[in-house]
């Protein structure tokens, strides 16, 4: 039976499930590195997922859907930035408002556009980038099946997420942009003193995080499912925040932590196929990613150090 569970597609599925978490987690990393808490990733993903499906329907092109998803996520983030940077509102409260707004707005527009609640009509999905199907026998055939599933069976945003993680890691530590971003989150006053605009820097970080959240939403709706269902993010924005913490506020770490959560999700989906053999109710499998999140937070938080100025509004002295 273990042979039926540990298959190439389990790992491929883990990478797929990790993608929305990783994109949102990297968004969280960039946002928190600039000193702004973003618990609104959940809402930004949800709005992105919805905008993507609607735009894909109107224009008949999934890529335009992706573009609108990214824009919608960035727009929600702009509201968060305005509230928490310009108005110096409580960032967690502003994030909560965004999450509720996202739930209400997508539900409301769904009924206005589609005339019913629940799930939208299916739209064109983004298809896997490489369409070769693995064949061949024997040892090499087996190897090729593993390699194909894990590396070549994915849709475009899955690869984009990996590139973004690598580019993000490089940018955060090797570029002036990254240095400035880290300064904003650690010691905004010092950054201000040497002529870095705290407001502008934080605005751009929040908007980038929203764009990544929107892209994560597009992955959910336009790649994984092909339609939008109300509240389809299902807490992923919060799991992504945990992944960001577990990844110690680095893009690479966020991606790695998301792989862990993605694997948990892939495993629970796989195990549900064996309901006849494993007589554990499906609800316990569905709990797995959430339980894992709590366990991970309990285990690592004490040793992971958040950016010093995160959550504190900056007032020019």
């Amino acid at each position: 039976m273990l042979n039926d569970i540990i298959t190439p597609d389990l790992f491929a599925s883990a990478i797929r499930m990790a993608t929305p978490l990783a994109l949102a987690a990297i968004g969280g990393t960039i946002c928190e590195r600039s000193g702004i808490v973003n618990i609104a990733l959940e809402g930004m993903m949800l709005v992105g997922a919805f905008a993507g499906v609607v735009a894909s329907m109107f224009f008949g092109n999934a890529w335009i859907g992706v573009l609108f998803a990214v824009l919608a996520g960035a727009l929600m983030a702009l509201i968060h930035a305005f509230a928490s940077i310009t108005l110096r509102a409580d960032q967690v409260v502003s994030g909560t408002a965004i999450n509720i707004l996202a739930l209400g707005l997508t539900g409301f527009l769904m009924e206005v556009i589609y005339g019913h609640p629940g799930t939208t009509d299916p739209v064109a999905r983004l298809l896997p980038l490489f369409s070769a199907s693995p064949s061949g026998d024997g040892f090499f055939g087996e190897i090729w099946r593993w390699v194909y599933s894990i590396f070549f069976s994915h849709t475009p945003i899955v690869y984009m997420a990996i590139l973004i993680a690598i580019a993000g890691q490089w940018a955060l530590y090797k570029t002036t942009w990254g240095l400035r971003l880290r300064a904003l989150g650690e010691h905004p006053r010092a950054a201000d003193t040497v002529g870095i605009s705290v407001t502008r820097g934080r605005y751009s970080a929040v908007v980038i995080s929203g764009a990544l959240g929107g892209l994560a939403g597009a992955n959910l709706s336009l790649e994984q499912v092909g339609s939008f269902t109300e509240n389809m993010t299902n807490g992923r924005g919060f799991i992504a925040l945990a992944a960001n913490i577990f990844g110690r506020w680095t893009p690479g770490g966020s991606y790695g932590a998301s792989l862990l959560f993605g694997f948990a999700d892939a495993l629970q989906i796989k195990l549900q196929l064996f309901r006849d053999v494993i007589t554990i109710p499906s609800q316990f499998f569905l709990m797995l990613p959430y339980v894992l999140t709590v366990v991970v937070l309990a285990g690592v938080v004490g040793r992971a150090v958040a950016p010093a100025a995160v959550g504190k509004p900056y007032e020019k002295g």
Partner: protein
Amino acid sequence: MAGKEAKRMGDRLAVAAENVGIPFISVLIAIAIASVIIWIAGFDPVAAFSALWKGAFGSGRQIGETMLRATPLMFTGLAVAYGFRAGLFNIGAEGQLFMGGLAAAYLGIVLAGLPAPLNIAIMLVAGAAVGAAWAFIPALLKAKVGAHEVITTMMFTYIGRYLVSWLVTGPLKAEGQIPQTEKLPLESTLPRLHEVFAFFPDSRAHMGFIIAIVLAVVVWWILKYTTLGFEARAVGFNPWASENSGISVSATTVKALCISGALAGLAGVTEVMGVHGRLFDQFSSGFGFTGIAVALLAKNNPIGVIFAAILFGALSSGSGTMQLEADVPSKLIFIIQALIIFLVAAEQLAKWIVGRTRKGVTESA
């Protein structure tokens, strides 16, 4: 001396005016923005809001329905407000509510046959305890390792919901096709208001409404006059200073989040005992999350929670009529909720607008 007294009185009035005024203006602005959204979506805002008003306050029965919807929101609003006072954001009131409901649905059957007052008392206390227990692990993680309660209580909400989903489809499922628990016997339910007082004879409002108001006063008293409440407020205001003056921040954090959980648990208990008489998967329409808006609108004042809950209860009970008569999707009330949270949270907004116009005026002059 008299002048000083008068000045202090004046200051108090100014604070009170601000505490009532800002929420009031926020609600008005939120309704104005929502009207624009309704209009852009191609509906008639006037028809929408008059249908909403009719649905919320149009008759005795409708007023009762508003009270019915306000009841769980008072409990969850108090829960979130108590947490905020101690510097904790209990975003997972929904999960604690589910666990409180679970306790009531289970005990209500087990206790069948006992006298009603005893039954009701046991169920309320047990439901509160289970709600507190569901907040305990996040509380402990917050106090001991600093795990943010926003993530942990949210995760516990999902875990609790799946637990309830399993129990109502499996071990606690009643006979029949529908996944729900058995109907509670009469002695395990809360009487309706019209059975005790003689008003709104055909409304579904139940005694939970009165219990919630009494509890709001109790919570207000705890915060204002007890050591427990003082410590919670001190830690919420400044944890470092509190620790230095001998208050244990971690103990206070655990206590405060558990009390918050207990209050949220009661929302689930009274929904099961007063409204549905049983537990099922969808028995809460996000009361735990709306509780956040209630607490913020009330500026975390327990007495304010009563009024804020009635407002959101009215939006909820009126939204059905709005959908029916003006075709406006009832999801609109979530948008209004979010707008109110924004506007209350961003008190600076008014100052910012004033500052801008002033700047503009001086620059152009």
